[in-house]
């Protein structure tokens, strides 16, 4: 008969191994990018335009482009996402429509990013004739991050105790007043967390902007939302696969800036969540 305790030891060892196989490479990736990327970072790298066919100079236009895109995406997705979350948490009944909405959200979250790119191309660039532009790219990214914002906002709204709503209604406040003055203020940290996570996602995505906005090389800043723009993730793709002989320092430096930007946003989201839990009054 096998010894169950020895079996357990072996099994637990294998489980630990599996865990380490995931977590250790994650750590290594971050360490490598910091180690090789940080030396390439300078004020000049951050503030200069790319030069000599992107083999020298900086990445300023790509940073600016990404900031524009992310801002545009959030301006579009936050109001719609928040109101959709309010609908699901406060108004929806347990019926077919609600199930359909939830299913649609699950599907939006699962659509491959490159398909968003195709959709943005067909709808915004071609059909609405916006051309490859910041507007088209922002809208595409906005729809892509909508499920993230809806899901996290809804969780935040639903975590506000039901009794607060009852109290407010019992005092003669209308449903919307209750949402506006009681539910929303207490859900804001959660909504903010989701929004920032959505921002991080939008900042890092490449495929949706490939055909909707991203410029291969554009040594000046966009002047309006109808202009093309460079973007950090696409720039990293370009200099690592499309342009030969780019200095390692520039490639790692770009990867570092992108990673730092995304991780910074995630960190902010985590801090807000943590502060909120600590201060929670009920």
């Amino acid at each position, binding site marked *: 008969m096998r010894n169950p305790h020895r079996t357990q030891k072996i099994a637990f060892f294998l489980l630990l191994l599996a865990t380490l196989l995931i977590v250790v490479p994650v750590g290594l990736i971050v360490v490598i990018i910091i180690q090789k990327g940080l030396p390439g970072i300078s004020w000049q790298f951050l503030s200069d335009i790319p030069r000599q066919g992107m083999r020298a100079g900086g990445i300023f236009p790509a940073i600016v482009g990404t900031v524009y895109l992310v801002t545009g995406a959030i301006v579009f997705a936050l109001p719609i996402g928040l109101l959709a979350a309010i609908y699901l948490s406060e108004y929806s*009944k*347990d019926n077919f429509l609600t199930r359909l909405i939830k299913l649609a959200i699950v599907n939006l979250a699962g659509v491959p990013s490159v398909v968003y790119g195709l959709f943005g191309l067909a709808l915004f660039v071609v059909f609405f004739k916006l051309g490859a532009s910041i507007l088209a790219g922002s809208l595409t990214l906005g729809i892509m991050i909508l499920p993230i914002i809806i899901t996290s906002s809804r969780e935040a709204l639903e975590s506000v105790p039901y*009794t*607060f*709503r*009852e*109290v*407010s*209604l*019992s*005092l*003669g*406040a*209308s449903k919307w*007043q209750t949402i506006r*003055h*009681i539910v929303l*203020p*207490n859900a804001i940290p959660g909504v903010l967390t989701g929004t920032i996570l959505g921002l991080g996602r939008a900042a890092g995505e490449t495929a949706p902007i490939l055909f909707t906005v991203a410029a291969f090389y554009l040594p000046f800043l966009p002047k309006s939302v109808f202009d093309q723009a460079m973007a950090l993730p696409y720039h990293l793709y370009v200099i690592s696969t499309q342009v030969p002989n780019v200095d390692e320092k520039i490639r790692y430096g770009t990867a570092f800036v992108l990673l730092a930007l995304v991780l910074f946003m995630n960190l902010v989201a985590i801090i807000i969540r943590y502060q909120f839990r600590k201060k929670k*009054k*009920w």
Partner: protein
Amino acid sequence: MVNAAFDIKGLNIWFGQIHALKEVDMDIRPNEILSIIGPSNSGKTTFLRMLNRLNDLHINFRMKGRVMFGRSDINKMDIETLRRKIGMVFALPLPLPLSIFENVAYGVRMHGEKNKNRIAAKVEDALKRGYLWEEVKDRLGESAFKLSGGQQQRLCIARTLAVEPEVILFDEPCSGLDPISTAKVEDAMLKLKEKYTIVLVTNNVKQAARVGDRTAFFLSGELIELDKTDKMFTVPRDKRTDDYISGKFG
């Protein structure tokens, strides 16, 4: 003199398949304290929440019968007006996550009052009538969660008074309180009776005996008996009432 009273005929309430209230006929008179007693699941809280239509929030809620509030059918009234006229104090102290001041000002603001001085005056007046003013007048800006349980419950009473209701519903208001705080809340109720109609749902038979003018006894969704409190507690007409108030079940 406020003339608020309910007249209830043929009231039935269902939650999905559950028949929570069955053929209830009764009235509630102006300026009385009506105590409602009964074991848990007897329908007494459902009855209370029917009066300000809080049951409507329940997805499977269904109601039959006619409930008149004064001269209006409650189901035909503007729901916010109805709820403003019928205040409610919940079982547990439920301050809103706002300051002490804002808790009381909330209802006033929601009804459209914007004048700061008038709001402040109403808050002060309500806190005085809820017997809380002296204890909190120097810390109105603090979070309401910093108050003790008894203070919080009096804050909830003051909050209800601030919107100037005609009726106040109490849903087991002392279930979470110690005897001293309970006595304070009961005192407050007896004084409020002069101006308001009070409906008190309570698990505590003795509390009903102490404060109620009349008492209604609910069992399994039926109104078994409704009578003057002293009469019900001395010569109940129904055997089940006798059993309940003498503590044989419940």
